[in-house]
């Protein structure tokens, strides 16, 4: 192994460039933000430890996904009794399916911004409070004078609209 300093720098560059993709991958397997962030951090550490094995002529992400998957498994073992974890075989199925449709998911995200722009001011407010300002459910219920049920129903409908908007855009572009 050569001088480790430039290696660490290379890794930081790669991680900075790909951390969003890594988070998305982890989140699809463990759809809980706090857990997914912990796993992302543990994955970064694992990548750092094994970075001398990385072959720079190969794409980074598939290599990094393998580490992320292992960290997800470790998380499973620690939190085995959590009621909200997918079964192991389902997680495998999701990971495999995701690898197949990843370019399509990337395409969808690209179109999401235009769909966000089309939201009504009320929906934009909801997005901002929930996702950017990270307001808790209680706070939002108070603010909008809504029941918990209505609040999450509204969030569901909002994401559903965004999802449909993206699908429509893909169809217009003939890429669906």
């Amino acid at each position, binding site marked *: 192994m050569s001088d480790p300093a430039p290696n660490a720098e290379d890794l930081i560059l790669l991680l900075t460039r790909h951390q969003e993709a890594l988070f998305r991958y982890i989140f699809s397997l463990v*759809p809980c933000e706090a857990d997914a962030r912990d796993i992302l951090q543990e994955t970064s550490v694992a990548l750092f430890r094994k970075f001398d094995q990385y072959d720079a002529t190969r794409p980074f992400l598939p290599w990094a996904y393998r580490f992320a998957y292992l960290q997800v498994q470790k998380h499973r073992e620690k939190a085995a009794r959590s009621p909200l974890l997918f079964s192991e075989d389902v997680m495998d199925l999701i990971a495999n399916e*995701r690898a197949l449709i990843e370019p399509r998911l990337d395409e969808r995200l690209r179109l999401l911004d235009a769909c966000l722009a089309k939201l009504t001011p009320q929906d934009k407010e909801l997005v901002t409070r929930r*996702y950017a300002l990270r307001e808790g459910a209680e706070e939002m219920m108070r603010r909008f004078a809504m029941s918990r049920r209505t609040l999450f129903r509204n969030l569901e409908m909002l994401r559903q609209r965004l999802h449909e908007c993206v699908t429509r855009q893909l169809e217009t572009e003939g890429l669906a």
Partner: protein
Amino acid sequence: MNLESLIHAQLDGEITREQHARLDALLREDWQARRLYLELADLQARLLQQPQIGTGRLPQDEKPPGPPRWKKFLPALAAAAVITVAFIMWPRESTHAEATSSGVAMLSQMLDAEFAQTTLRSGDTLAPGTIKLMKGLAQIEFFSGATALIEGGAEIEVISAWEARCVSGRVRVHVPPAAKGFLMHAPGMKLEDLGTEFALNVRGGASAVHVFEGEVIAHTAQPPASLKEGMTLGQTDAGFLPIGDVHDLVRQRQERRHAEWQQWSLEARKDPRLIAYYTFKHWPDDRWDRLVNNFTEPRRPNRAGGAVGARWTQGRWPGKEALEFKRPGDRVRLNLDGTYDALTLACWVKVDSVDKKYNSLLLTDGYDNGEPHWQIYEDGSLMFSIMYRPPDASKSAKHNQMCFSKPVFTADSLGRWHHLAVAYDNQSGSVIQYFDGEEVSREISSLHQPGRPITFGPCEIGNWGLPTDGHPFPIRNLNGAIDEFAIYGAVLGADEVRTLYKNGRPE
């Protein structure tokens, strides 16, 4: 509960144990269910990571550039234009997201402003917090639409897009109809604006307000009072802050900066190391309006450029011109003769959005040996590369020496003028890139071999002219404007790059 609702409940963490077991079973059975789950989970992950939502700067509606008839003739270009519309660059660094996610206002104009706590620049997003202006004038534009002009010394607490507090100082507030209801707190009073312009003086814990236009409801210890145009509440011995000459002063300041730069530029263009120097001066008597003159001294008119598509727009200052690159065809054509051992490229650019995989600064046509390509990569980093393909190498293998900086174009740096530079010499192979005069990357490619010559030939600013066959990313036009571009046949040191930056910076 149907599949969709189960997925959403899972994503919101609002799912019961039984519902989760059902979702688990549905995902096991059905690949279409998995697909829907993956799409919705990915959408959620993106929303959780997208800092631009936080600043209130949700992407604006845009129309695809270019007339529809392109579709008929140039399907590839038209498709790319549609793609361009949707894609707004956003930074990935989560610590950065923290910094901008709570923005509620922005700093627009400033005049000799000095702040106690930080170095704030115009265009900066403001999070809730206190601003202490020591001297000068600063204008705060709240995301609600309300605008406040503040004179130093003053202490203002920005509470939200709809609310602020004046602890001390002189303030003048304009509230357009859309921001009706904006609240301004001051010692002993709370002012509720009903679409107005008013001034507020606070000194020694006493407040005085004067309404210039519209109506303000003043809440004090007394019953609420309606203040109309011309009315004053409270005592003050200082006059209320006038608005008229501020904008004049700002204009004068800009004119002076422009003149200073011009003075410097007249000397800088005599540098014998310059291959070409474009200041994007628009010639009113150029009947074709497409000439991009090379201003090096002595003159080398054969290195003048030709604008294609790109339109004239305002540069760093009013009266300074720039070329704007928006559409897939926009570019400036150049043909630079000669062979060089080193180069420095330096430009002033305002990037509106990093919306393609590669966003051109300067690229040679095709990509032959010794040719440099300088662009902005999709993550907002600067990317310099130079091609050297061994004679026996296959065409598909990668032989270009690529260097990336850290991402420099983030939500915060878009839409402003920035100075970019890259220096490379073919002996050491070292590539150094600069952003606003500061080094942002230093790298030697592992493929480097000393002494291989550098050439330009036919090349372009702001786009990629003649891509090599079968290349997957042919649309690379910059989305932004350039108002100065210097090309040197030598390496400029860090001090020299800093000098370029200091002499050209807008403020």
